[in-house]
């Protein structure tokens, strides 16, 4: 069978390297390779058929490949990749965001080759994480994501970029270390025959309750920092505020999803008992993130910070959906991650454009921009409405299923996220009232509406927001081809 996934990774790698080397033409190379990426992923989607669960109850994967890599008497590591309904939508998200990011920053002037190369490298890493089914391979790609993002923030970022980049690096690195330990312990203490997912699946589930609980808690910390979960979230606002727009887009759109995906793939699937045992902790953390993110967002003046905190709130809902451990919840989690990926990307692009259109992202000083920049205003409006969960836009079906799943497990506790939806609506509406409406203030004479690359990138995201909002079936029909079935 044709090694589709390896081919995908290979083309990504080649594209990245070429971009780094192609100097003035970098943006075109990047654009081309992004389109190819999207093309390949759509190919995967069209040919996707999930082989289901094997006789021994181990979930299997489409386009699966496995080649031995490192083999010692006590250590069996392989290059194993494959996709199922959980990873495929996220892979699609990666392809989409890579394309729009390249498009959005098409006019990047500072070291374009390096910039686009790093963007592509980040996406390569994310794609790898979503594809990898072996502990080492997974961790390898996981770490690989870190470096380009560090440089994107540290070199192209804002005034406090050094601080932000370092903070981002430290937090996520510490997180990934704890995660690695948890994965290693899972592999060794369960005496799994090999480090690949299939090899660990049955032994890991056979681990004792206490072990599983501890391991899952460790994974919650490790993956949670990427989520990010309160109180380990403070790297996120700084990173977002300082990062260049492209960086923020990838950060919010993809990097946060790595945490969610990892927790599902390596936590929920390998350590179900641990999950159940840790549920109170999970609920506490999720509620904390939901409340904290939403409430603090209300006080923000910097649009990027505001969106960053709303991301914390949304990812809290994702965590909640994972925590309830039902097939509806899992579906909601993946759907919501996809939705948040698209919407937050849109909102960060809006913030970025706002910054270099008006020279400020301060929603307390820039007012009534609508007459001057109608297109930008429309984008901001759609983004905000999508993010506050308006029906017929992408987030609604996801949030609806997530909250329904929560109600199903937690009963009236669901009022917590529900009421916070009001707060979320409140800070978005207030933001719109201040920035879009009212008499025009703080808008420099030179302010012009969006340049075409930004407009194009954003309109693509808007189109997706509407498309998947009206036809969520396009996604859910993929997602259900995964262990979503198997969950009790």
């Amino acid at each position, binding site marked *: 069978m044709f090694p589709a996934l390896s081919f995908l990774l290979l083309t990504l790698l080649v594209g990245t390297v070429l971009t780094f080397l192609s100097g003035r033409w970098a943006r075109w190379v990047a654009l081309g390779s992004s389109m190819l990426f999207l093309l390949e992923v759509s190919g995967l989607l069209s040919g996707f058929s999930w082989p289901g669960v094997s006789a021994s109850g181990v979930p299997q994967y489409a386009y699966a490949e496995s080649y031995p890599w490192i083999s010692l008497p006590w250590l069996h590591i392989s290059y194993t990749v494959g996709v199922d309904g959980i990873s495929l939508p996220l892979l699609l998200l990666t392809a989409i965001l890579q394309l729009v990011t390249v498009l959005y920053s098409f006019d990047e002037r500072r070291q374009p080759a390096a910039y686009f190369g790093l963007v592509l490298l980040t996406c390569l890493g994310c794609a790898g994480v979503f594809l990898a089914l072996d502990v080492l391979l997974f961790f390898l790609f996981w770490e690989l994501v870190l470096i380009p993002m560090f440089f994107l923030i540290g070199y192209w970022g804002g005034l406090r970029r050094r601080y932000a980049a370092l903070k981002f690096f430290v937090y996520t690195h510490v997180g990934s270390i704890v995660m690695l330990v948890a994965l290693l312990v899972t592999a060794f203490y369960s005496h799994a025959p090999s480090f690949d997912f299939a090899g660990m699946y049955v032994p890991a589930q056979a681990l004792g309750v206490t072990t599983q609980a501890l391991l899952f808690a460790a994974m919650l910390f490790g993956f949670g920092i990427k989520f990010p979960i309160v109180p380990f979230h403070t790297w996120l606002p700084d990173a977002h505020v300082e990062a260049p727009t492209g960086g923020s887009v990838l950060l919010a759109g993809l990097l946060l999803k790595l945490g969610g995906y990892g927790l599902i793939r390596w936590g929920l699937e390998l350590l179900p008992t641990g999950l159940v045992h840790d549920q109170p902790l999970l609920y506490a953390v999720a509620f904390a993130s939901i409340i904290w993110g939403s409430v603090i967002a209300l006080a923000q003046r910097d649009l990027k910070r505001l969106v960053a905190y709303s991301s914390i709130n949304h990812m809290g809902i994702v965590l909640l959906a994972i925590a309830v451990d039902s*097939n509806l919840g899992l579906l909601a989690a993946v759907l919501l991650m996809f939705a948040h990926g698209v919407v937050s990307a849109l909102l960060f692009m809006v913030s970025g454009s706002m910054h270099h259109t008006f020279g400020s992202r301060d929603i307390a000083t820039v007012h009534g921009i609508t007459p001057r920049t109608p297109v930008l205003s429309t984008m901001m409006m759609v983004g905000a409405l999508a993010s506050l969960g*308006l029906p017929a836009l992408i987030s609604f079906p996801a949030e609806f299923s997530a909250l329904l799943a929560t109600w199903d497990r937690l009963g009236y506790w669901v009022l917590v996220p529900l009421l916070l939806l*009001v707060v979320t609506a409140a800070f978005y509406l207030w933001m719109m009232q201040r920035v879009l409406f009212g008499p025009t203030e703080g808008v420099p004479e030179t302010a012009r509406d969006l340049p075409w690359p930004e407009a194009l990138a954003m309109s693509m995201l808007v189109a997706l927001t509407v498309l998947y909002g009206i036809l969520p079936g396009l996604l859910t029909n993929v997602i259900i081809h995964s262990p979503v079935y198997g969950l009790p």
Partner: protein
Amino acid sequence: MWQATYLFDWAFLLPLLPALSFVIVGLLGPRLKRLEHGGWVAVGFGFATMVIGVWIAVEEMLSSGGYTDQQYTWFSIPGNGTGTFPNGFSLVVGTLVDPISALMLIVVTVVGFLVLLYSIGYMHHDGGLPRYYAELSLFLAAMNGLVLSDNLLEFFLFWELVGVCSYFLIGFYYEKPSAASAAKEAFLVTRVGDILFLLGIFVYFATYATSGSAGGWAANGFPFVQGNQPFLAGAMGGHSTTLTIAGLLILGGAAGKSAQFPLHVWLPDAMEGPTTVSALIHAATMVAAGVYLLAVASLFLGFTPADQLAIVAIGGFTSFFAATMALVNTDIKRVIAYSTISQLGYMVLAVGAGFAMVGLYHLFTHAFFKALLFLAAGSVIHAVGTQDLFKMGGLGKSMRITGFAFLVGGLSLSGIVPFAGFWSKDDLLASVYGTLATHPVYWPFFLMALATVFLTAYYIFRAFFLAFSGPASRDPTLPTAHEASWVMTGPLLALSGLAMGAGLLPFIPAFASLLPGAGIPPHYGLSELALSGISLGLAAGGIGLAYSLWGNGKVYTAAPNSALGPVRALLLRRYYFKDAYDAIGLRGLYGLSRAADFVERYMIDGTVHGLERAFGGLSNRLRHIESGVVLDYAAFLVSGLLFLLLFLLVIAPWLVSTGGI
């Protein structure tokens, strides 16, 4: 009958056509200068929609109240035999044509079309017309979708969409800070209701997931109607407390949309929008959606007695409460807005008392005469450019048609025979009266409703006399008013006709089949006649009082120090509700958020920075041990040796002897 099935199957055109108009006007609007920036496009689509809507309604009449349900799966999850949704779970979007939705279709499409037409004249001088017509079309689409919804989720979906349309249209004059903030307020207050509604949906969905036919409710997409039978959760059994809670949550949602107490604050402020919008959205259709929801719920899901009492209480109280605030207001639109709240209270009251159909009957008539009142008021504002009643006056001569229209609307609202309002309101009061024997607890609310008749007649005619009667305008600076073009007067006349005749339609048997069930058309026994007499008397009294105080250019001013003074102040401050909500929202929530932000910056991040500094300091300290003097290094080495010896020769053996290691 073949063409019936034919058009039912095409019911989805009703949301689709205006949606199409939304896209066209939204994209091409700015190019279509000739067509009033797309206005005529919207009107055209509105007309087509009206034709189809009315046609479908007529067919529904002829098919004598059948159900026609079309379903399109939105998304679904396969079941895994366990959990709450063992047979999976599917969310559908469908079009359900049944009597009451047909009735609503008439209201929405007819008023919608008339308002669009009227806008051509009314909005002519405003900027941003493409936006206006696009959003109005989108609203029509969403409203039709809502009316045709065949399950709660879809209902909620369109419910939110009409909400956001109202948000945009209230904020149409977004340069005005007051408009922007009113829009936000409307969205947020209704959002509170929406949250309760959503939770209610959860309760129903989770409780009855497996009830009903074939695979259960969940697997079939939670339809209102299964196999031509109402789903009637109540009948499915299930824990009564759960049902009650679910019902209350639905009521919460309805209260938000229909501006019932205590979520009523947003509607008067919503008058910041263009008057046409107030007429269509905030009088005739969207705000009535709450009542429609209650009716649907009572028909297809069923309420428990506890729910009914709560609904009655809310409705009865709101009708009175809102009317009182209308008594003193000086803004012509706000007066009508308060009367809308109060009339919606009537409808809620009726539904609660178990007469959903009567409630809808009143909704039907109210839609026409309230839209008429707003459009007439709009025509006045268009002419004189102010909304302050105390600046107007004597417009009756210069604007005959408008004056006539407003008069018709006012009489209909006050419930003077034979205007439309009379029949429905009378029927409503009579029906509620009928339940008092079995539910004496309804008494106070019935009395409130009855008293409201008097207040209503008073405040609407106070407005009428202030605006139209008297010799001339009180404010000479105002432009000399004159009647507008046919696009505005035409709809006024059409609506006047409806405001007069609509109340009699149910006497046509075919039409009555749209309102199946108790008391339609009204049946007049002795007690009913007596009651009509009383209410007519009250209304007449109200009108009389209004005339004696305000007629012929008189202006009544109660001495502020008199007993009425403080009351007046209280009413003008709207019982301080808005202030209270602002306090909660701004000082409460925002303050909390600022506090949290402080904690974030200085405590959570502070800890991190503390750690950072600690490491840095440690590193610096240690580095300076490295003196560069070789003998120091030797000293360190030797001391290290001593430590090792100490450990291996003394400590370790001791530990071993004590079993430490």
